[in-house]
């Protein structure tokens, strides 16, 4: 019983929903600040993302006519919950060395639920532009999922003995040095970062949201608290994905002594790469994105996998 309560607390406060949301929003501030500096602007103060969420919570929710109310309101919540679960899993594995479900495939599947939630929510809104966004989002998921899966399993292939357990991957790295020391895993890491860009729907892959043509596409009809939930789960994704990559490729999170600093450095490096790609690339069309991910990126991922098999 105590462990159940502990797990619930883990999920709700640390390292689950609350912690992830706070750090995610702080990361979003970093993102906004860096973007502003790149564009020669000053940028917002550190509490701006929090203020935005609070403001949204105070606004009324407008439900478009012809919308499926339940699906429209519940779908983003499923995404929020899924990110929370993933974050809890990753942190518990990193801190205690064992999670309640320290499982790679579980993480992979749960990480698609936020996209799925957005698609269902946008479809339920009954807005034609939102449904175009939903269609694009699904195609984007299809596009990046292929190289993403190959990249993640490149790391699994390098681990001996091969395992789907996140603990196993961390133990291997603790004993034999980080996976990022191998050529194959460097390639896989690059592929994973590119896919993360699409997973976060950041430019150049912000195709489903496409402000200039679809007016925020999938998010279009959301307002008030529902929009706050949508924004919050995006922020949490921004925090969870780098942690996932650190766990798989880069030795995991260490919260003792110098490890804290090292972990923060790793995290900041990954976030900075993502933010820089975001700020330096214009949006591509969905067919270009599909071709990009199924073409060069998949080839790159396969090269990484083959290198891993031959032992590099």
């Amino acid at each position, binding site marked *: 019983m105590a462990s159940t309560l502990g797990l619930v607390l883990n999920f709700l406060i640390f390292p689950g929903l609350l912690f992830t949301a706070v750090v995610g929003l702080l990361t979003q501030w970093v993102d906004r600040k860096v973007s502003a500096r790149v564009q020669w602007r000053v940028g917002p103060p550190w509490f701006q993302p929090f203020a935005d969420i609070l403001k949204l919570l105070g606004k009324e*929710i407008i439900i478009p006519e012809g919308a499926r109310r339940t699906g429209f309101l519940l779908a983003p919540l499923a995404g929020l919950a*899924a990110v929370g679960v993933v974050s809890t899993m990753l942190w518990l594995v990193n801190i205690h060395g064992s999670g309640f479900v320290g499982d790679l495939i579980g993480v992979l599947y749960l990480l698609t639920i936020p996209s799925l939630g957005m698609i269902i929510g946008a479809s339920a809104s009954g807005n034609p*532009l939102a449904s175009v966004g939903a*269609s694009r989002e699904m195609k984007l998921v299809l596009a990046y999922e292929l190289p993403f899966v190959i990249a993640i399993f490149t790391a699994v292939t390098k681990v001996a003995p091969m*395992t789907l357990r996140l603990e196993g991957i961390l133990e291997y790295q603790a004993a034999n040095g980080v996976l990022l020391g191998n050529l194959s895993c460097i390639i896989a890491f690059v592929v994973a970062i590119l896919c993360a860009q699409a997973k976060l729907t950041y430019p150049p892959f912000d195709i489903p949201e496409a402000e200039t043509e679809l007016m925020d596409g999938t998010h279009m009809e959301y307002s008030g608290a529902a929009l706050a939930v949508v924004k919050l789960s995006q922020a949490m994704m921004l925090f969870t994905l780098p942690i996932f990559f650190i766990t798989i490729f880069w030795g995991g999170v260490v919260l003792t002594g110098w490890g804290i600093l090292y972990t923060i450095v790793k995290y900041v490096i990954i976030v900075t790469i993502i933010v820089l790609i975001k700020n330096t690339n214009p949006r591509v069309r969905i067919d270009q994105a599909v071709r990009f991910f199924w073409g060069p990126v998949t080839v790159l991922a396969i090269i990484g996998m083959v290198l891993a098999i031959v032992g590099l």
Partner: protein
Amino acid sequence: MPQILVPIIVPAIAGGLCLLIPRRVKGVREVITLAGLVWAFVAALQLFGQWPLSFTRDWVVFGDLSVQFDLLLSHFSAFIIVFVVLFGLVVALYSMSWLSKEHDGRRYYTLLLWTVAASVGAVLSNNLLLLLIFWEALTAILFFYVNMGRKKAEAAEGAAKSFIMLGLSDAALFLAVALIWVRFGTLSMDQLSIFVGDGATIAIYVLMMVGAITKAGAMPFHTWIPAAAKGAPTPVMALLPASIDKLLGIYLLARISLDIFNIGPAMQLLLMIIGAVTIIGAVLMALIQHDLKVLLSYHAISQVGYMVLGIGTGVPIGIAGGLFHMLNHAIYKSCLFLTAGSIEKQAGTTEISKLGGLARAMPITFAACAVAAFAISGVPPFNGFVSKWMVYSGLVELGARGMSTYWIFLVAALFGSALTLASFVKVLYSGFLGQRPSNLANVREAPWPMTVPMIVLAALCVLFGVWAKFPIDTFINPIVHGSVVTGASGALDVSVGFWDPGVATGLIILGILVGLAVFGVGRLTTRRTGHIFIGGHKPPESLDAMHVTGTGFYNTIRETKGLKGMFANAEQGIFDVYEMGGRLGNVLVQSLRSAHNGVLSTYLTWAVIGLGAMVFALLSVLLKQLVGGR
């Protein structure tokens, strides 16, 4: 009557009774059907746990050749018959409301009962010849069943195609059984143990495998399922290709691959390749379909890939995953076909472009469809995720044992799962979400005999996902451990490092509750309804113009370089064994046709030439013997 015969004989007799009742008498037929199936179901449940139980009678005796009516209840067959009868029962209940006056209810219920009887017989038989007879009976029943569809032309075409493809695969099975008799002298499945090594045993195994996977619908013998889907009554699709045919096909495949034959790595690799190709190929086709029933039928093919792949791994957890997927697939796919039937009944069409926004009118159908759709896509915490997870684990274990190509199969399986999800997003969007066209404004929820089966099956999807340990421990593990000798090393211990669906589900639900609390903090109570936003324009009075059909959802994928040609080829039937066989036959026939010019003298000339050739051949044989004799 011995108890083991009850699930065969009771439905068979009930079917006969249904056929005897005059067409005009209403209601009695349904009562007999339900009563017979409930009786059979109770009997099947009582049989569960009583293995090994056998029943043997001499059946046909020709001199030395005696064929025995030999039934054997093993753990595996006991589990299959429970679900065969359950699906029969569920579909029968559903059909009570679904059938309209245009359908011949007498023939329908008779065929349904006989399907159940023949399937149970096939699963219980311990004699290959007996199995073959039940197997053939099912093929014949399916032919009549598909033919009952309302769209006569499509139904007849689909029925013919399924009958020919299944008939040929049955012929392959027959040939294999004959070869086994000649070579091993017995047809009792529990006495056979064949090591696949030389050419003859490989041939026997492959022939039997063709029989099994055609029934289950794996590539390249899959095309009868979409053809049948075009014409067949929808509950029939839910009963046969979606559930019972899967159970039977994969049952036979598992029996021959794990039990009767001792297959080597080469055959395992063949199975894995068939599995991976099936997963990807069929789901890509499903992505571009525009008829709900045909779309579902392609998924019925694609999912077979996971089962074949799982069994092909030869690793206990992979095999268990394959078998569990068989069960899960039967549950969610028949649920999906039932929801499609309910849409067809209530909205009058399954054409995706004509549907939309039905979620509010048909909330139960929508909920069942969404649960089953997420289950088939392997979204946690539903049952499809658990069985797919087990198959993936099996593949990773193969990789750990040094198979360097394991990742190709793994990526195919994982990516296939993403494609499945995409395809079902299209279904959910175009059927239930989006704007409702005004001609569907009066659609109502289906009556209770149709919703109850959907609810039951959807509930099973959730139960077997969240409490996956129960079905795995009760049904699957003993098969892999017990009566069936796997020939695979290593103990199956799914509890170690096993994905704990209960906890994750609990946390997700908790997360949703927290989200609802956030909504509460934000003033959910002050929500209001507004117009949809289309760039600031005022939306038109009729929202029909705002209805975006899901038909073109994945046109981008279709137009992608490399896939474009493949889709074009597939639509012309290049990958269809049936079509290609037909074309080859046509070429032969056309070339022979020119010889038939209808002129008597030409025919006479041919006859004389033929006679001459025969005489010459006979004479040369005779001469040879005379020379040899001297």
